[in-house]
């Protein structure tokens, strides 16, 4: 059997086994397991075809990255839709740090300026920025609601609206960075990160794979911190009302 056929057969067998097991255990999960698998298959087939097209017509890479930024912004924006201008906040907090980092990495020659190198790198950095934006924004929206008494107490003691929000934004930023710090600390010990696995499967030497993975992980640290800081700043502006007051959510 050819390798592609074996891959398809093995993965189909595994998902069918999972669905059968869930059915036997009466977990009510069989249908969602199968539809999720089918959805993943269709999405990856379409993306595969699109990327093949982009590799032939490099200028399409720009459109591809724009679609990634848009999707990430819509996802992150929906997590803080209680705030006015949530989507605008998400676009800025994701696009600015992620795209600047991609630009810098290309500029210094860390990656070749080809769609093959740019698209995966941009994808990882945009995904990371989306995670930081979502976590920071969602926590801030929760705290603006649950912490209304604390904010009012600080305002009543004479704080400016911006200062009254500082403890909330610090907590949200620190919380958002925890998953990335853990991921970076455990890289190679608990899991083998995606870039590393992909490069090794694609035929690169483990040494090259480790170097590229490290570049991506360390870039992500700054990109995600900047996304969290930008989200906090933009949410603070959106939640601050004239007359040193804070928006009640």
């Amino acid at each position, binding site marked *: 059997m050819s390798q592609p056929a074996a891959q398809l057969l093995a993965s189909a067998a595994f998902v069918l086994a999972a669905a059968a097991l869930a059915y036997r255990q009466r977990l009510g999960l069989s249908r969602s397991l199968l539809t999720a698998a089918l959805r993943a298959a269709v999405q990856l087939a379409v993306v595969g075809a699109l990327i093949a097209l982009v590799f032939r017509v490099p200028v399409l890479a720009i459109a591809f990255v724009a679609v990634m930024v848009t999707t990430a912004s819509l996802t992150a924006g929906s997590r803080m839709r209680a705030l006015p201008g949530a989507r605008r906040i998400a676009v800025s907090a994701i696009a600015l740090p992620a795209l600047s980092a991609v630009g810098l990495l290309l500029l210094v020659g860390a990656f070749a300026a080809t769609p093959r190198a740019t698209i995966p790198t941009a994808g990882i950095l945009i995904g990371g920025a989306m995670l930081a934006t979502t976590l920071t924004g969602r926590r801030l929206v929760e705290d603006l609601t649950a912490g209304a008494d604390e904010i009012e107490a600080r305002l009543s*003691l004479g704080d400016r609206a911006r200062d009254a929000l500082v403890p909330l934004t610090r907590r949200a930023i620190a919380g958002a960075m925890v998953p990335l710090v853990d991921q970076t600390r455990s890289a190679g010990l608990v899991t083998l990160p995606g870039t590393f696995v992909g490069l090794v499967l694609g035929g690169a030497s483990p040494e090259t794979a480790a170097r590229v993975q490290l570049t991506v992980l360390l870039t992500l640290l700054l990109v995600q911190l900047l996304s969290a800081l930008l989200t906090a700043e933009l949410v603070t502006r959106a939640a601050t009302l004239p007359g040193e007051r804070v928006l009640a959510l």
Partner: protein
Amino acid sequence: MSTSVAHRIDGLAVRGLAVGHGERTVLRDVGFAARKGSVTALVGPSGAGKSTLLRCLNRLLLPHGGSVLLDGEDTAALEPCALRRRVGLVGQTPVMLPGSVRENLAYGLGADGTDSADDGRLSDALAAAGLAADFLDRPAGELSGGERARVALARALTREPELLLLDEPTAALDAAAARHIGATLTTLARDGLGVVVATHDLAFAAEVADQVVALRDGSAVVGAPAELLAERAR
């Protein structure tokens, strides 16, 4: 000009105040004066707009119409943070900020270089709220409900406000602790502080207040505590 001088009130003067939440009118044409050196009780059923009115007095909420004057000056023209230091507010839930009681009391003092947070000042505020000075080093998060209410009151007093607004200060307290808070408020007023207290407890209002502002259906009726008790008895 001469009219405003003639009508100048030493304290807060509320004139024709109107407030709404969205489409709903909460208060309309509310007027009364809360003088320094006296206790004013805002009474009325839940949802009558007592908390809303208190928050208009230090501009945490902006009214749709009317005005609030402090010593004859429109509060809309005052810098909001400076106004809130002159007109303190103690909310219904006594929020303790992280750290010790000392850190809570000193919060924000000295930030603008005009106030200092020396222990004497903090102990004085604690004493005025009925707590001993040895509370200063206690972690604020470990205090009981009654102690928190007193620390929140002391924290507002460290700013040396001219008027103090309190939202349901006895809501979480037993009868003895409520009487203690009542006695504290009357003492503070005797020393020159203007006190405005929102409460649903008519007996407490009658005990501490020099005047009562009763809110009903969005309007206010101003009277003496004796009238309030008489009306209640009927």
